[in-house]
C-alpha cells in the first residue's frame, strides 16, 4: 500500500496528470475490474514504461455514439489520457488527413505494428449483397475488417452494433448487419475478440479492458459471449438501487404517477434490468454522481447491452426475469385486461402461497418463466 500513498508525491506529471491523480485513476480502473488495489500501480507502470500501444479504430455501420461516449467521459482531461495513453493511429472521425492520406496512414500503421496493434471496431458489419452497404475508400467494411483483424493482436468490438448487431440488425435487418466476431469466424480469422456491448457502452468498461490488456498482455476473463466478466457478470437488477421496491412489490404503473414520482420500481413500465447483464447501476455515467443512469433518471432500462432484448423486445413489454421470479402476489402488469375473468385472478392470487397457486398466478399474470427459475442462481 506504500506506493499508493499519494501525499508525498511530488508535482511530476504523467500523461498530463499530476502523478497523484494518475495513480488514483489507475487504481480506480483496477478496482472497477475487481483487481486488488495494488494492480493500479502495475497499470501505471505498464502505461508509462513502454511505448504506447498502437490502436486502429475501424468504423462500420455506426452512429459515432461510442466514440462520443469515450471522448465525453467527464473524468477531468480523460481525453488527454486516452490520446496520450494509447497511440491512436487511425480513426475516421478524428484523423486529420482525408481520402488517400487516410488510407495510406492506415496501411502504413498496419505494416509497422503488424501483430501488435489493437483493432477497435464500432458499428455492425453489413454482409448482405457482398457488404455494399458500408464502404470506406471504395472498399467494403467487411473486407477491411478481415484485412485489419488478421494482423491485429486483439479485436475490441465496442458497442452493441459490433458486439451482437445492435440497431442495424433489428428486424428485418435490411443490410444483413452482423457482429464483428461472427464475420471473423466465418472468414476463418482467429484473432481473439472481446465484446463491450452497450448503446453506448460505458467508456470505463472499454478503457479498463484496454488497460488490462496493456498491463497483463492478455484479455480479461470473458463470459460465453466474450464480454469481460468484471463489467457484464451481473444483471442490472442485481445492483439496481430500486431493487428494494421490486422486492416489496412497489411499482410505478405510468410515467408521472405517484409511484413513479416516489422512485418506485420500473419493472411494470417494461424495465429490462431483470434480463440485462451490465454494470450501469454501479459504474454510472459521466462522473456526475449517483442516479446518473437510465433507471436512476426514472426511465426503464431497455436492455441495450443484451442480445435478444435491446432493439428486439418492445420497450414496454415486461422483462422475462432471469434467476429471479417476482412473487406471484404482485399486482398484474395490465390490471383489468380483457380475457381473464376476475374470479380466476382472485382464485390464483388466493392460492399464491401454495405451489399450485403460485404456478397458476404466474401463468395468469404472465410473470412466470417456462423453466424452473425459482432459485437464485446468481447468488
Amino acid at each position, binding site marked *: 500500500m506504500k506506493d499508493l500513498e499519494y501525499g508525498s508525491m511530488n508535482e511530476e506529471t504523467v500523461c498530463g496528470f499530476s502523478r497523484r491523480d494518475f495513480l488514483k485513476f489507475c487504481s480506480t480502473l483496477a478496482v472497477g475490474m475487481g483487481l486488488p488495489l495494488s494492480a493500479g500501480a502495475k497499470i501505471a507502470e505498464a502505461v508509462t514504461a513502454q511505448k504506447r500501444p498502437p490502436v486502429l479504430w475501424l468504423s462500420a455501420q455506426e*452512429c459515432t455514439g461510442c466514440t462520443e461516449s469515450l471522448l465525453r467521459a467527464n473524468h477531468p482531461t480523460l481525453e488527454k489520457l486516452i490520446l496520450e495513453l494509447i497511440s491512436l493511429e487511425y480513426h475516421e*472521425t478524428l484523423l486529420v488527413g*482525408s481520402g488517400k492520406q487516410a488510407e495510406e496512414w492506415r496501411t502504413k500503421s498496419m505494416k509497422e505494428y503488424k501483430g501488435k496493434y489493437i483493432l477497435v471496431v464500432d458499428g455492425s458489419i453489413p454482409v448482405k449483397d457482398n457488404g455494399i452497404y*458500408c464502404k470506406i475508400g471504395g472498399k467494403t467494411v467487411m473486407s477491411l475488417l478481415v484485412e485489419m483483424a488478421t494482423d491485429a493482436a486483439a479485436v475490441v468490438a465496442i458497442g452493441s452494433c459490433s458486439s451482437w448487431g445492435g440497431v442495424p440488425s433489428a428486424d428485418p435487418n435490411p443490410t444483413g448487419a452482423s457482429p464483428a466476431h461472427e464475420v471473423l469466424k466465418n472468414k476463418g480469422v482467429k484473432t481473439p475478440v472481446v465484446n463491450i456491448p452497450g448503446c453506448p457502452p460505458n467508456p470505463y468498461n472499454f478503457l479498463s479492458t484496454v488497460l488490462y490488456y496493456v498491463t497483463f498482455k492478455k484479455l480479461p476473463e470473458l463470459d460465453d459471449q466474450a464480454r469481460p466478466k468484471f463489467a457484464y457478470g451481473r444483471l442490472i437488477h442485481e445492483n439496481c438501487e430500486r431493487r428494494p421496491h421490486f422486492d416489496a412489490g412497489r411499482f410505478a404503473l405510468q410515467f408521472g404517477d405517484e409511484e413513479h414520482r416516489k422512485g418506485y420500481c420500473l419493472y411494470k413500465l417494461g424495465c429490462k434490468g431483470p434480463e440485462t447483464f451490465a454494470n450501469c447501476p454501479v459504474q454510472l455515467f459521466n462522473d456526475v454522481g449517483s442516479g446518473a443512469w437510465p433507471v436512476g433518471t426514472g426511465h426503464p432500462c431497455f436492455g441495450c447491452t443484451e442480445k435478444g432484448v435491446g*432493439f428486439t423486445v*418492445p420497450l414496454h413489454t415486461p422483462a422475462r426475469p432471469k434467476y429471479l421470479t417476482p412473487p406471484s402476489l404482485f399486482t398484474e402488469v395490465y390490471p383489468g385486461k380483457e380475457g381473464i375473468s376476475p374470479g380466476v385472478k382472485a382464485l390464483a392470487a388466493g392460492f399464491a402461497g401454495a405451489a399450485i397457486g403460485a404456478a397458476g398466478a404466474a401463468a395468469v399474470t404472465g410473470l412466470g418463466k417456462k423453466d424452473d427459475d425459482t432459485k437464485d442462481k446468481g447468488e
Partner: protein
Amino acid sequence: MSKRITIDPITRIEGHLRIDCEIDGGHVTKAWSSGQMWRGIETILKGRDPRDAWIFTQRFCGV
C-alpha cells in the same frame, strides 16, 4: 479538359462521406457527395410500436 478527383473517406465528420468533384481550369464544375453507409432504419421502423420509435431514430447519429 476536366479532371475528376475523389476524396473518400472524408474525416473529422460523423459517418462515412465521399466527395467526388470535376475540376476544369482550376474551378470545380461539378460535385457529388454521397453517404457510404446505409442501415435502413426507416425499414426497421415499419410495423413497430410507435412508443419504440425514439429508440431507433435517436441512433441515426450519436453526435
